[in-house]
């Protein structure tokens, strides 16, 4: 049984890749992922804004209240030229590369063109095999036209492509007026892969405190259907590899995504819930299913039910009510 696949120009032994998450902070967990059979790992995102905000905040509070009172001209020991940059993250890439034999994909969330380029270059230098751009942007300004939002994505991607030689994937949300067009533009701007879709924090309301609280609910398999549609639609229409993420929990989810056209599937919530060992269970189940259904390889399956190959291409286009009407038999 050949489970191998290619993603971002890299030959991977199977299509299961742990998605960017805090699990990847710990080197021992990365090793466990590899041991469980993961074919590559995506590290937790480095957030330029957070990194710089953190540095600014530490700078600020280290001098907060200083030079105001004779007995306490400062309140903290001098930190010297502390690591204001991404050194900790880069060191993590280096250590991950040393510890693992599977490819290590760094993930980056930038805010400025300079930041995107600077950090991407450093990630490449630290040994990352590829970079996944995590564009996490919720446009809330009613004066910002959609075109501008799209241009921002393209610009970030171009900047990083300009800065590095390693493959670059871009992880996006589904909220574009024309996702297909957006995918093509990203593809044409040099994306080696598209990761569909990003999962945003969903603020919730605490009824006791009457306040808005940040919230991230783990995905369930239901969430994968959105990605499934778009993977199927885009497969074969763009050159970039497609990675499916968000809602991949079981071997069935993986198989469906592969059939829709994904090169790899990325998992996070399932690993939080069931542990890293879940990867091997999914792989085993997947293999069993393929054997049972007489599939020889992942390559054979990949895109077999994409819009292009699907016997009923419109299935991916219909709105729910259409399906309901079509399904109606008087």
């Amino acid at each position, binding site marked *: 049984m050949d489970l191998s696949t290619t993603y971002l120009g890299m030959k991977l032994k199977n299509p299961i890749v742990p998605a960017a998450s805090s699990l990847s902070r710990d080197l021992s967990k990365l090793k466990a992922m590899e041991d469980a059979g993961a074919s590559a790992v995506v590290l937790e995102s480095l957030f330029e804004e957070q990194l*710089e905000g*953190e*540095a*600014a*905040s*530490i700078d600020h*509070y*280290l*001098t*907060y*209240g*200083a*030079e*105001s*009172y*004779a*007995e*306490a*001209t*400062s*309140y*903290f*020991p*001098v*930190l*010297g*030229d*502390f*690591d*204001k*940059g991404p050194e*900790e993250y880069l060191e993590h890439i280096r250590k991950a590369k040393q510890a693992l034999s599977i490819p290590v994909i760094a993930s980056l969330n930038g805010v*400025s063109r*300079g*930041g995107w380029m*600077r950090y991407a270059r450093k990630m490449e230098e630290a040994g990352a095999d590829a970079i996944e751009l995590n564009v996490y942007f919720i446009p809330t300004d009613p004066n910002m036209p959609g075109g501008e939002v799209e241009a921002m994505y393209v610009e970030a991607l171009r900047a990083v492509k300009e800065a590095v030689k390693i493959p670059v994937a871009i992880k996006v949300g589904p909220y574009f007026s024309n996702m297909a067009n957006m995918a093509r533009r990203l593809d044409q701007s040099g994306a080696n892969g598209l990761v569909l879709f990003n999962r945003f924090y969903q603020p919730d309301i605490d009824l006791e405190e*009457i*306040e808005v609280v940040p919230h991230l609910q783990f995905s369930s398999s239901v969430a994968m259907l959105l990605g499934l549609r778009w993977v199927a639609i885009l497969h074969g229409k763009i050159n970039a590899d497609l990675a499916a993420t968000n809602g991949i929990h079981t071997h069935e989810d993986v198989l469906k995504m592969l059939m829709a056209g994904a090169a790899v599937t990325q998992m996070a919530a399932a690993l939080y819930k069931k542990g890293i060992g879940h990867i091997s269970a999914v792989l085993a189940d997947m293999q069993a299913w393929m054997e049972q259904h007489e599939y020889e390889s992942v390559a054979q399956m990949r895109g077999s039910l994409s819009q292009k190959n699907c016997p009923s291409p419109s299935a991916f286009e219909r709105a729910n009510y259409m399906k309901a009407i079509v399904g109606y038999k008087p």
Partner: protein
Amino acid sequence: MTQRKSVTIDGNEAAAFVAHQVNEVCAIYPITPSSNMGEWADQWSAEGKTNIWGTVPSVVELQSEGGASGAVHGSLQTGALTTTFTASQGLLLMIPNMYKIAGELTSTVFHVSARTLATHALSIFGDHSDVMAVRQTGWGLLASASVQEVMDMALIAQAATLKGRVPIVHFFDGFRTSHEVQKIEQLTREDMAAMIDDNLVRAHRSRGLSPDRPVLRGSAQNPDVFFQARERSQPYYVAFPGIVQEAMDKFAKIVGRQYHLFDYEGAKDADRVVILMGSGAETALETAEYLNAHGEKVGVLRVHLFRPFSAKHLLAAIPKTVKGIVVLDRCKEPGGTGEPLYQDVVTALSEAMAENSLPFAMPKVIGGRYGLSSKEFTPAMVKAGLDELKKASPKNHFAVGINDDVSGNSLPLDADFSVEGNDVVRCLFFGLGADGTVGANKNSIKIIGEGTPNYAQGYFVYDSKKSGSLTVSHLRFGPRPIRSIYLVDRANFVACHQFVFLEKYDVLKAAVPGAVFLLNSPYGPDEVWDKIPRPVQEQIIAKKLKFYVIDGYKVAKDTGMGSRVNTIMQTCFFAISGVLPKNEAIEAIKKSIKKTYGAKGDDVVQKNFAAVDQTLANLFEVKVPAKATGSIALTPAVTDNAPAYVKEVLGKIIIGEGDSLPVSAMPEDGTFPTATAQYEKRNIALEIPVWDEKLCIQCNKCALVCPHAAIRAKVYDGALLGKAPSAFKSADFKGAEFKGMKYTIQVAPEDCTGCGLCVQVCPAKDKSNASHKAIDMADQIPLRLPERENFAFFLSLPDVDRAKVNPGTVKGSQFFRPLFEFSGACSGCGETPYVKLLSQLFGDRAIVANATGCSSIYGGNLPTTPWAVNADGRGPAWSNSLFEDNAEFGYGFRLSLDAQKEFAGFLLKKLSSELGDALVESILTADQKDEAGIAAQRERVAELKRKLSGLNTPEARNLAGVAESLVKKSVWIVGGDGWAYDIGYGGLDHVLASGRNVNVLVLDTQVYSNTGGQCSKATPIGSVAKFAASGKPSPRKDLGLMAMAYGTVYVAQVAMGANDNQTVKAFLEAESYDGPSLIIAYSHCIAHGYDLRFGMEHQKALVESGAFPLYRYNPELAAKGENPLKLDSKAPKISYGDWAMTETRFRMLTKSKPELAKKFMEMGQQSSQRLYHFYEQLAAMSFGEPKKGE
């Protein structure tokens, strides 16, 4: 030989720089103004910097200076090169070990930033009273007068002590030298290695204790031999001055600067000489130079080696032409025949005269005191001393620099006398603590000092308040080394970085004619004139000042710099002060920006560059009109209703005129009236809370958490509202206890510091707009006048009858009037809400012993103080003894009160028939457990006093004198964790064990807050603090558990932000317990590194992490067979890291040592889980009678 480089550093850094490189062990304890020396040493060791032998010195913090000196003694006794850094009371605590170290002829140098000893008051500032208190210990005393000398003498001292075996106190003036930034030449490692003879180091080691060559040292001796043994070391003292001079000569050969034990400078044929030591000598030299250039013949003899005092060297240094000598001492020895240096000089001269060896005719010698507690010492004062010698009968034992109108000891001063050259640029900057002015000025000094051939000096004067404090930076730049060691009183450049200061302070007083005046102003060049006070206008015109304005806050906002105006104001300074050519200066600033922010990326650098460029585009010269036309006057220092003493004395201190107060204005014994902070309206809040009476649920939480008692609750009769100002708000009281009455939450608009804690805790949200609460912040200025009126009316409403209030709830407690108000604590302080609660619940009968620290400073630092009185004139009586003895001090209160009460009881019984048996019986058996009981006893005692006034017998008069003691008094022992966990722990433990009725309140910030964030044993695991730069590796000491072990101590651990009702309950239970009580009150603090507005949320998170369980341990319950421990917080629901990582003190370690930070978070998690579990088990234990067989 490495090139010596020029550095701009302060005296503390200079001393530490050498000490760290020529020692192996530093055992220290923080004390102002020496703390920075230990901090530097600790930092350098943390960075892996080595001494000249290639090892990293071990820097350890002890629990007190006594402990530090013990550790130093031990380290020296086993052969390591060891030092410490200290001052003032710290040096006093070292005295016992100093005798031992000297008696054992041990080589070491202690570096001391000489500071005033606490007498009638504490003072953190500089004089020689501390070093003079150790002159009898057998140590050498070596004085440095300037930052350069500090570095040089630190090395000379080390070389000399190794050779001569006499230990040395190397001292320099606290603040004036320890904190003055000067450009100096830095010694190299080669210099140090050349000065230190390794043979002597080996000899030192060989004298160390070792089981391989055992000796016994520290024997006990009897009358037969002790005396002889004491005399045995005498040859070392005879030889030592010569050895120090040899070291000075060797230093001169290596480095080029020649020092002598006594350095004379001035006219070779001087007829008058001033003798002094320390930084004043620099001023004296500058003055002598000037006087000699103007036809006088004077000189200055600087004393370097004061002990052993070498009369031979002294006499040889004085010019033979001398006719008069004035000896100046920076200390006071009341009752002595003169101060120490004076006495030694007189003795040396007289002995020489008696032996016919005086090389000149006996001159006239007078002595005087100067500069106590960093009092300014100026050329005019030097001149006054020298002028006095011209008189036929000069005044001896004078005091110069003050107006002593009580004893007539002061010398007249020529206020206009100045010696400063025209080539020195002198600058004054008025800033706010928070605006970065001092930091920017330190940076400017570096730019000029290290980037140009010019010399630079910076000295910084801070306010005594910790919030909204004024800073005044005094900078000098010039082509020659700067010897003007006094504040700038003739400035060529004055910058006022805060517009509001113009109304509060006379900022232009020191401006010379033609000076440049820079104002950070929200008003542009065309409108500013009418917005500034008339006296300021008048000075600008009269002195023909060049007046510039910039809207620094606007430029900061526009260029994304937030509210920090430091870079902007610094740019203005360089652009218009003329200290450097403008382009060169701007270039230098940009270079410095690049150096500072380069690591953060180009974007940050560009943002700062933009701020510099925008500054230049927004800096305007104001066309000054010919006439002052303004109508704005300066704000009075205190309110109109202030008592005369507050107006005439404290008011002067507030506006910076304290130096002009005569001796007679001061109390004889350090006693001041309380309740004075109410008259100082500081108006420092930009925003203040506004109450929405319709939304308010009347929980009083806002009043509870307010650190400054600036938001208060009251219930009152609605009929009183008739006279209320129109804007005064009220609501019907919600609840049964005061049904039918009115309720108001009122803000003290001019006392609020704008911290926002009240808004954060307010639970009442508008149902249609959750961002609106029952309290919101709003701009202060439009609210100032109406709310001032409202607050005055609020205060005029009667306080509620204490007997009718349920004090056991947050709501009830806040109807008691705060008797601690408007302190100088930080905005958002976490300690003062507890102190205020104490004052509300027990203030009218409380006596407070306050350990030195934040609470003694915001509680007792002049000018105005926060402990207040109620409508009856009762309120807390407060005193601060020392840092280390506070528990014992408060225990003494209890002993005294009980003794007086016992005497009163004895007399009552004796006089029972005359006073009436019923009255006596009711007084002696009074139940004073609650407010009503206390009120009733007060009435009985009043009745007793009335009766006693009619009995003219000695016993009746004696009883009248102690009658007050019959009303229950509440003794409170208050201090921080540095006191309770560290320096004062031994005493605290003893007092808790005593069983006497005292209440201990530990304001636990988990760090030494007042001295700037040093690690204490309360510091939690993983927290970065000074002396724990790599994070505290061990858990916080469990003081509460230790106290519980007695079984007889009431113990509570409280955190108001986590459970405010538990806090109130604990205070009441602690006070009512008839025995020792200990409350450990978690207090958020500026030293934790976050916006204090969120302090209460952080407290909550801490408790939720399990790292600080809330509990009450009441021995009374055990007596009833119940478990005395009530655990008041729930099992941990967030992790240690979830709490810790929200605070910079923990988070910063993730930047410097991420792996360690991670490990500490895991250890913290484990230890807090275990801790909670442990308490859970304790609280679940059975305390009933053991069953049979158990």
